[in-house]
């Protein structure tokens, strides 16, 4: 990190390499006096060109390939992919398969949120460079975080074979499904995880938060009976209510020179926010009672407009994830077959699911042999990019009295509110179809 003083009364704040985020990016804020002149979230993560090399691959290869976009949230990519491809093939999965998909996804939420809340974000609030140094004085907290994270990973291992790039998810279902006993073996740990998450909400709610609120447009999935995860319509607090297939009509991507990730905006209203804060504000009533209760007790209720409180909302979502996992395990009866197959046919399919960091949209076009003609992937961080910059535009003016290094640290913390996954965001979006 560096904070450079410039000539006159203009100053430049530059974080050359954002740390405790996934991937490579930097931020640059230009100040003249107390006025912010420019904010750039620069993404220099090298392009990997997924949408291009997916062309010509067989659709059955897609879930394993797109997992490689992100080591932190591979299940999210697999889930959006299989749902989109199943729409093309008109496949309806067995209810037990649906249950298992939710369960493995919750494992990823637990792993990812535990990592971010305690190991990447909490050090900002408590004044440490990282969780390992934090462990010297807060050993119990870090050990608790590691155990929580491990329980999420364990769920993914039981259902998917391993925690990073799991191998069991496929179009139509799973390669192999667990027995009831396999899942029952997880219940004690998950019960501990639920109780610990409730305690964790209280711990993080006691941190100190900067006074900062924004009038966000929140976008998330919405389902009539469930807190959003694998299905639902895309909604916002400003009247958006669409099916995933209409994503391209409402959202557009912009390619700016300083970022290798396309910035996604609402066509009519520009920047918006996806992720835990959006889900929480739009779907509070769908949270299980235990999660709602502890959130109310900590005075974190919708509308929650302070992005720094996102750490509390993530902890509330941990409570949801553990509760929901326990509920699903109690209901589980293995499906008649681990997957259903359907004849290949040409077509286009869309899907959006809720990755730990927010809405993840996929669109595929396949030919009559089942080969990919076009792929389009819009990850959550690409969608939040513009909103992150807007937060800094509004947040930095309250910091101008501080020394540059303090401003810089606060800016980094503000970026981490979004748990940005830059590796994901660099897997951009195709703008025009090339014939």
């Amino acid at each position, binding site marked *: *990190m560096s904070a450079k003083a410039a000539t006159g009364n203009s100053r430049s704040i530059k974080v050359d390499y*954002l*740390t*405790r985020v*996934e991937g*490579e990016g930097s931020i640059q804020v230009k100040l003249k006096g107390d006025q912010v002149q420019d904010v750039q979230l620069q993404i*220099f*993560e*090298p*392009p*990997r*060109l997924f*949408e*291009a*090399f997916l062309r010509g*691959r*067989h659709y059955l*290869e897609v879930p*394993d*390939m797109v997992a*490689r*976009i*992100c*080591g*932190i949230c*591979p299940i999210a990519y697999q889930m959006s992919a299989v749902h989109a491809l199943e729409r093309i093939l008109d496949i309806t999965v067995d209810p037990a398969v649906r249950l298992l998909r939710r369960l493995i996804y919750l494992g990823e939420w637990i792993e990812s949120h535990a990592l971010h809340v305690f*190991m*990447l974000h909490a050090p900002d609030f408590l004044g440490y*460079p*990282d969780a*390992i*140094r934090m*462990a010297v004085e807060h050993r119990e907290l870090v*050990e608790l975080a*590691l*155990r929580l*994270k*491990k329980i999420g*990973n364990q769920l993914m291992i039981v259902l998917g*074979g*391993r*925690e*990073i*790039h799991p*191998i069991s998810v*496929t179009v139509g279902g*799973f390669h*192999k499904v667990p027995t009831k006993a396999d899942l029952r073996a997880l219940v004690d740990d998950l019960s501990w995880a639920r109780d610990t998450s409730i305690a964790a909400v209280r711990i993080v709610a006691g941190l100190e938060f900067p006074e900062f609120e924004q009038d966000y447009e929140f976008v998330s999935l919405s389902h009539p009976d469930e807190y959003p995860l694998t299905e639902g319509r895309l909604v916002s607090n400003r009247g958006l209510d669409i099916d995933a297939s209409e994503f391209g009509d409402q959202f557009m*991507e*912009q*390619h700016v*020179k300083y970022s290798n990730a*396309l910035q996604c905006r609402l066509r009519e209203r520009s920047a918006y926010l996806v992720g835990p804060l959006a889900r929480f504000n739009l779907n509070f009533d769908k949270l299980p009672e235990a999660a709602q209760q502890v959130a109310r007790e900590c005075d974190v209720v919708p509308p929650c407009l302070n992005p720094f409180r996102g750490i509390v909302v993530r902890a509330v979502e941990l409570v949801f994830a553990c509760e929901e996992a326990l509920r699903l395990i109690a209901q589980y009866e293995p499906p008649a077959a*681990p997957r259903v197959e359907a004849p290949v046919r040409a077509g286009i399919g869309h899907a959006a699911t809720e990755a730990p960091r927010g809405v993840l949209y996929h669109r595929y076009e396949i030919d009559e042999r089942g080969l990919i003609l076009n792929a389009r992937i819009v990850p959550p961080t690409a969608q939040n990019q513009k909103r992150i910059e807007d937060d800094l535009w509004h947040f930095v003016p309250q910091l101008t009295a501080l020394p540059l290094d303090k401003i810089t640290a606060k800016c980094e913390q503000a970026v981490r509110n979004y748990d940005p996954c830059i*590796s994901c965001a660099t897997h*951009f*979006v*195709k*703008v*025009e179809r090339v014939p």
Partner: protein
Amino acid sequence: MKSKPGPKDKTTNHQPPTTSHGERSEAPSPRPTVAVFKFASCDGCQLSLLDAEDELLGVAQALDIVYFPEATSIMLKGPYDIGLVEGSITTHHDAERIQQVRRQCRTLVTIGACATSGGIQALRNWKDVGAFVRMVYANPDFIRTLKMSTPVAEHVPVDFELRGCPINKHQLIELIGAMLAGRKPNIPTYSVCLECKRRANVCVAVARGDACMGPVTQAGCGAICPSFDRGCYGCFGPMESTNTASLTEQFRILGRSDDDIVRAFRSYSAWAWQFRQAGEECEKS
């Protein structure tokens, strides 16, 4: 020494073979210093270190993690005793950066398929990367990328390569333990088939005719795919002595088209020479 030091096991607090050096803002540390670098990748292999939940705090006692942007805001300058490198080289900037990284690291270890073979993004190596960029970006002029995605060892000497997409975290801990003790790491180079037999799996290739890459793929994953009723898809890359020609023939007997076979070799370690050659031979025939 033990390969997996427990976090509370004081006896595994290793005496390091080397001391740290260079100018530091902290007091000189008696522990070997470690830096973790990222190039083009998904972050999954470096995440494996954080995913070693039972070992992480123990590892952090035995080593001094002084550069690991995904996990810490501490970014000390080199030189470092151990450098772990994730990701492949895909830009001019990264081709220069890996030279600097090599100069800063006494021991340089590459972790994962991207760093050891160019990764999934090496699929561009058979295509026109300019066309690829135009497919994805509205303003291709803004994008700086190399025509090829290449492994680190094509650019600088590498002391050890840990395979896998992703790596196995237990192998990573074993490797770190071995480096601390100054011994050879116990990382097998035989095929997935051996692991599969040890798990007493029924062979999915023989019993069901699945196109399984296990016979030519290096062990390390624990044969998870056959254990989940599917053929191995080769994410640990080629084993030490592959017979890809024989496997290609077997895939043909199983009724796989040449296109299918080329795709099977061209996935997560496509640019590893054994798989590269097998795919290209199949394409020629």
